């Protein structure tokens, strides 16, 4: 924490709220941290959109994205594949914009039409972080539109996935409509049944038949429309030879319906129409609660989300943009600074310095020489290079690993608790039903026998049981969500509770690259620090700004006689007749000197390498205490793609030295996990990045840690925000407690079933008793689960 007086001294950017380092960006009395923020303000001011700053203080996002990355949108085919709709004038497009974070964002995005007359309408969806833009494509091209968004700080993320398959809109609406119909029938049939509940007078008895028939009519939509899912699911599970919880439910529904039809048509009773309607209404609500996930994150990202949409192809000396899908073996491609290599390729031209942190986890960039094969997923960190594609995108090293794993998954499917229970539940229920049937036949009361048989199946209908899991787990889901752990679905929580082995990845998982200060390794006297400070103040590069921030306060400005910034390399300047070089290893240190090589910004003054502003990763907050707590109840492993330079530090943190593994390739990680699983372990993989993707999929629970939750997260069961890492232990404990809640609510619902069974086996189940018992048990379960979940959440301070 910065002391209070420092905060008062610091100036904050009017646009983004960052600390203002250089004071030379000022407009209308507002300070800005950089040219980007200033120009956004000017654009908004020019279009009279400064209301943007009224709804929130510092609502903006510092603009650091390069507009040129959208060059591929010039290609008509690619641009069209992104559109939702297009006619002669109008086109509609939906973008995923992760930077949407406050009400000002919505306000500005929905006022886009004031920035450009080609835009007719914008709609922002805050939770999904999407904007839907209607524009006239003859006035503004898609590329211009995207550039406009980027310019004001709302750069959309466009991935290959958007172009190859249109996102399917999940039809949760269907279920909502089914609930609406069930609710309609439930309410009306309750109303019709009231006279029956209060007892019919002799006069009203004339209408009993009418009420019965109307009630029966209300059950028809329930059976034909709302209840469909249960019938389908039961038939499916019988075919697969498994007994799921839907079978006793379906049995109950069918028996309720048939008995009601029989009673009403023969005039022997009032039937159970209201119970049937209510049962389905509650069951469907439970189903809806279970389905309701927090869809602001995508868990289904595969390799395509990481790769660019298009690449620059060099065809007979000409640069051409091609879609990634059109890329063929033998094509010559151009990869610029910070672009990802989309397919395995051979280096033809240029100095390649590839950052493979995505693929292998190794954080140091690797120099490649001409003719070497570079695997897909690497990121070029210096100037542009030319490559020849040797393998199609879909068969490259990383993507093939991914696809293999995809096929493997699904062999062993996870059995949820309620499915495990239902394996015993259904046979026992049928047993009781038949025993009472034969008992009453044996006694000699066949009428009572049938009545008891059906009543057992009705009462045994595990309605409350079916609701206990969804309500508990969805409450847990929302607690996790609040705390920065985002689960894919409710099943993932059950998986989490059963874990006994934890496997951690190193880079990006237990360590983080994002840090505030840059420690300097080497010696830098005060005068030379001032030189570095003065040089970096002239640069807008994010690293320069970080260096300026870390040196600020102790340094003075010195006059610079010569200054040149070389893109992708560094800065060359002359101060007091001394040459100052600041930049990458190859630029500053070169090949002649042996100097510690690691990620960071090197400094050379007057011909001598002074040291490096190290970008070494640091361990996440609370790692040591977390590992200590976890080691008492879990087996802990570490898999790192990195070399073992940190092994001494890590072995003091991790309890078992044998479980620390270094130099692990993505495939090794995958095999390590499946090896553990074969030994009967329930493994959770905690990783990040694409290099862990295979392992994340293979593990019983794949948990991705991400510093920027919206940006990069591979397909997994859960995504954890980096800041919540220290809570991990509590998350695990809470998930275990959630399972206890489910067991308890199961016991309670069983108690209700047993009480009902007492009446049912005697064959005297009155419609009124059924109508009371069923909703009562449901309400008990819902309130019990949600109350206890909240109680436990408070206990775990989540």
């Amino acid at each position, binding site marked *: 924490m910065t002391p209070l007086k420092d905060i008062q001294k610091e100036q904050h950017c009017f646009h983004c709220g960052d600390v203002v380092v250089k004071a030379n960006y000022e407009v209308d009395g507002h300070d800005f941290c950089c040219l980007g923020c200033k120009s956004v303000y000017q654009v908004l001011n020019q*279009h*009279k959109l400064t*209301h943007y700053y009224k*709804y929130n203080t510092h609502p903006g996002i510092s603009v650091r994205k390069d507009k040129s990355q959208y060059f591929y949108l010039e290609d008509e085919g690619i641009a069209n594949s992104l559109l939702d709709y297009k006619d002669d*004038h109008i086109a509609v497009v939906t973008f995923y914009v992760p930077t949407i974070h406050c*009400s000002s964002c*919505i*306000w500005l995005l*929905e006022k886009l*039409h*004031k920035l450009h*007359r080609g835009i*007719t309408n914008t709609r*922002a*969806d*805050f*939770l*999904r972080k999407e904007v839907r833009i209607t524009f*006239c494509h003859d006035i503004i091209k898609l590329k211009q539109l995207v550039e406009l968004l980027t310019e004001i700080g709302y750069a959309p993320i466009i991935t290959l996935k958007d172009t190859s398959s249109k996102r399917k809109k999940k039809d949760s*609406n269907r279920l*909502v*409509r089914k609930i*609406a*119909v069930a609710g*309609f029938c439930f*309410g*009306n049939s309750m*109303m*019709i049944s009231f006279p029956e509940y209060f007892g019919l007078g002799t006069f009203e008895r004339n*209408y009993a038949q*009418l009420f019965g028939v*109307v009630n029966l009519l209300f059950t028809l939509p329930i059976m034909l429309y709302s209840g469909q899912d249960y019938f389908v699911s039961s038939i499916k599970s019988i075919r697969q030879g498994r007994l799921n919880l839907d079978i006793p439910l379906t049995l109950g529904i069918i028996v309720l319906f048939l008995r009601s039809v029989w009673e009403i048509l023969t005039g022997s009773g009032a039937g159970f129409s209201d119970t049937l309607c209510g049962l389905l209404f509650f069951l469907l609500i439970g189903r809806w609660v279970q389905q309701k996930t927090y869809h602001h994150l995508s868990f289904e990202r595969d390799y395509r989300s990481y790769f660019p949409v298009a690449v620059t192809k060099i065809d007979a000396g000409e640069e051409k943009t091609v879609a990634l899908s059109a890329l063929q073996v033998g094509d010559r491609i151009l990869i610029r600074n910070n672009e990802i290599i989309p397919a395995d390729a051979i280096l033809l031209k240029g100095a390649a310095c590839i950052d493979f942190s995505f693929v292998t986890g190794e954080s140091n960039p690797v120099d490649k020489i001409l003719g070497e094969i570079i695997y897909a997923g690497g990121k070029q960190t210096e100037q542009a290079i030319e490559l020849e594609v040797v393998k199609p995108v879909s068969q490259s090293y990383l993507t093939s690993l991914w696809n293999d794993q995809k096929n493997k998954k699904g062999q062993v499917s996870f059995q949820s608790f309620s499915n495990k229970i239902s394996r015993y539940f259904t046979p026992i229920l049928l047993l009781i039903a038949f025993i009472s049937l034969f008992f009453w036949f044996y006694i000699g009361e066949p009428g009572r026998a049938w009545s008891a048989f059906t009543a057992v199946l009705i009462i045994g209908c595990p309605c409350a049981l079916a609701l206990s899991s969804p309500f508990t787990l969805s409450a847990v889901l929302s607690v996790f969500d609040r705390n920065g752990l985002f689960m894919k679905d409710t099943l993932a929580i059950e998986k989490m509770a059963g874990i006994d082995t934890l496997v951690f990845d190193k880079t990006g998982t237990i360590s983080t690259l994002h840090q505030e200060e840059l420690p300097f390794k080497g010696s830098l006297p005060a005068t030379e620090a001032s030189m570095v400070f003065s040089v970096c103040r002239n640069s807008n590069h994010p690293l320069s700004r970080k260096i300026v921030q870390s040196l600020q306060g102790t340094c003075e400005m010195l006059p610079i006689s010569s200054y040149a910034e070389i893109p992708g390399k560094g800065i060359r300047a002359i101060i007091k007749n001394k040459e100052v070089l600041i930049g990458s290893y190859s630029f500053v240190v070169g090949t002649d000197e042996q100097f510690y090589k690691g990620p960071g910004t090197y400094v050379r003054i007057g011909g001598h390498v002074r040291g490096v502003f190290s970008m070494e990763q640091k361990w996440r907050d609370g790692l040591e205490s977390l590992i200590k707590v976890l080691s008492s109840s879990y087996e802990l492993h570490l898999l790192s793609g990195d070399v073992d330079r940190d092994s001494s530090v890590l072995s003091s943190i991790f309890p078992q030295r044998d479980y620390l593994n270094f130099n692990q390739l993505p495939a090794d990680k995958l095999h390590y996990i499946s090896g553990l699983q074969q030994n009967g372990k329930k493994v959770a993989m905690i990783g990040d990045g694409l290099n862990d993707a295979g392992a994340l999929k293979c593990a019983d629970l794949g948990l991705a840690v991400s510093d920027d939750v919206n940006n990069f997260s591979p397909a997994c069961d859960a995504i954890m925000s980096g800041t919540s890492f220290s809570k991990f232990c509590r998350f695990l404990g809470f998930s275990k407690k959630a399972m206890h809640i489910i067991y308890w609510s199961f016991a309670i619902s069983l108690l209700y079933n047993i009480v009902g069974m007492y009446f049912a086996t005697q064959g005297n189940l009155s419609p009124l008793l059924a109508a009371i018992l069923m909703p009562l048990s449901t309400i008990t379960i819902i309130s019990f689960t949600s109350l206890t979940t909240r109680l436990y959440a408070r206990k775990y301070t989540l």
Partner: protein
Amino acid sequence: MSAIFFLIACSVFIALFFLGAFFWANKNGQHDDTYTPAIRILFEDDVIFDGQENEKGVDESELNK
């Protein structure tokens, strides 16, 4: 007592009407985004910039030609 037939028919009809209205709203996408409208309603109408609104109106009519 034939009023009871009429009353039942009436109540069911009204309920059906609301069910239909719900279906319509649901199909219309009114339940797709239940969060943003709550923020949107708090924005003030910026009357000051009326001139620009008109400009945009002109653009639109040009497009329709």
